C-alpha cells in the first residue's frame, strides 16, 4: 500500500466513524422506542415509507458503513489471517455486497 493510500484509508475510516457515531446514536434511540410493545412491519413502514428524511438518513448510514466496515475487516484479514492482496480484494467485495444489500433494504422500507 502506497503512503497516500494507507493515509486515505485511515482518514476514510475516521471520517465515516464520526458520521456513524451520530447515526448509531439515532439508531439506538429509534430501536429502543420502536421495540416497545413489539415490532410490526406496519409500525416500521408507517415511519419510513415515503419519508425523505429517513431515506436520506439510512442512505448516509449505509454509505458510511460501506466505507467503514471493509477497512476494519481488511485489517483483521491482514493481521489474523495473514492475507495480503487477498485482504484488499475481499474487503472491496464485502463493501460491494453491503452496498447492494444495504440499498435494497433502504429502498424496501421507503417504497
Amino acid at each position, binding site marked *: 500500500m502506497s*503512503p497516500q493510500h494507507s*493515509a486515505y484509508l485511515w482518514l476514510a475510516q475516521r471520517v465515516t466513524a464520526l458520521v456513524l457515531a451520530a447515526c448509531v446514536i439515532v439508531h439506538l434511540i429509534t430501536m429502543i422506542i420502536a421495540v416497545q410493545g413489539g415490532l410490526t412491519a406496519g409500525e416500521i413502514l408507517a415511519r419510513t415509507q415515503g419519508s425523505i428524511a429517513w431515506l436520506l438518513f439510512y442512505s448516509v448510514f449505509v454509505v458510511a458503513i460501506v466505507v467503514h466496515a471493509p477497512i476494519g475487516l481488511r485489517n483483521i484479514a491482514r*493481521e489474523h489471517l495473514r492475507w495480503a492482496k487477498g485482504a484488499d480484494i475481499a474487503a472491496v467485495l464485502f463493501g460491494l455486497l453491503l452496498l447492494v444489500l444495504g440499498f435494497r433494504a433502504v429502498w424496501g422500507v421507503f417504497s
Partner: protein
Amino acid sequence: MTDLRVSVWRGDESGDQEYFDVPRKENQTILDVVTYIQRNLDPTLSYRYACRVGMCGSCAMSVNGVARWTCRTHVDKVCDTDELELRPLDNFPVVKDLVCDMQTFFNKQKKAGGAFQGSKSRDDGLAIIKPDSKGRMAVDKAIECIGCGVCYASCDIIKWNPDYLGPAALNRAWTLVEDERDTRRVDRLRAVSGDAGCHACHTQMSCTQRCPKLLSPTHSISGLKREVTRAALKGEI
C-alpha cells in the same frame, strides 16, 4: 523466606524453560536473581546488562510475561507467589537464553528515518530551540527514549504484522518530524506510512503501559498519523 522457583528460557529460537531454585532476599531485583543463577547454579546462562541502575536499558527481558528492565524490577513487585518466569523479550529473535537480537529493532529505526539531517555545518553555530516552542513541547517526553526495546516487545501489532516499524522507531521519527532543524520531513513522513507504518497502530497502548521511562509512544504515533494524513491530503507525500 522461601526459595523462588525460577523458570528460565534456555536455548535459542528452539529451547525450553529450565527451573532453578533461588534464595529470596530483601530488596532483590530480577537482575540479582539471574546473576545468582549464573554465578552459583549454571555459569553457561547468558543474559545482558550493563549499568545496573536503569540508565542503559540493556537488561530488558520478559518477567512473568511482561517486558521489564530487570535492574529496576524488584522481585516483591512482580511475584505474588514464589514463581518467576523469565524469557527473552517477545518479538525479538533469540540469540541464546535471555539474550535477544536487537538488529531488526534498530534497523527499523533507520528505516523510519530515525537519523537527523540538519542544514547547517559545524561553523554555523548552535541552533536555538525555544523550550516553549510548539514543536519542542510536543516531543518533550518522546526525546527521552533510550531504545531499550520494551515497547517493541510489548506490541502485538508486530506479532501480527512483522514489518510494522513499531513504537520506538515511530516515536523517534515523531521527535524529528517536530524538530525545526531537520530537513528530511517529507522523506520521513513517507517512510512512516504504508501498511507497516504509523497507521497500522491500533492504540492497544501496551507500549505506553510498559515504557520504563513513562513515555507515550502511542501519543507520538498518533501525532504521526495526523501529520502523514495532512501531508497526503496536501499531496506532499
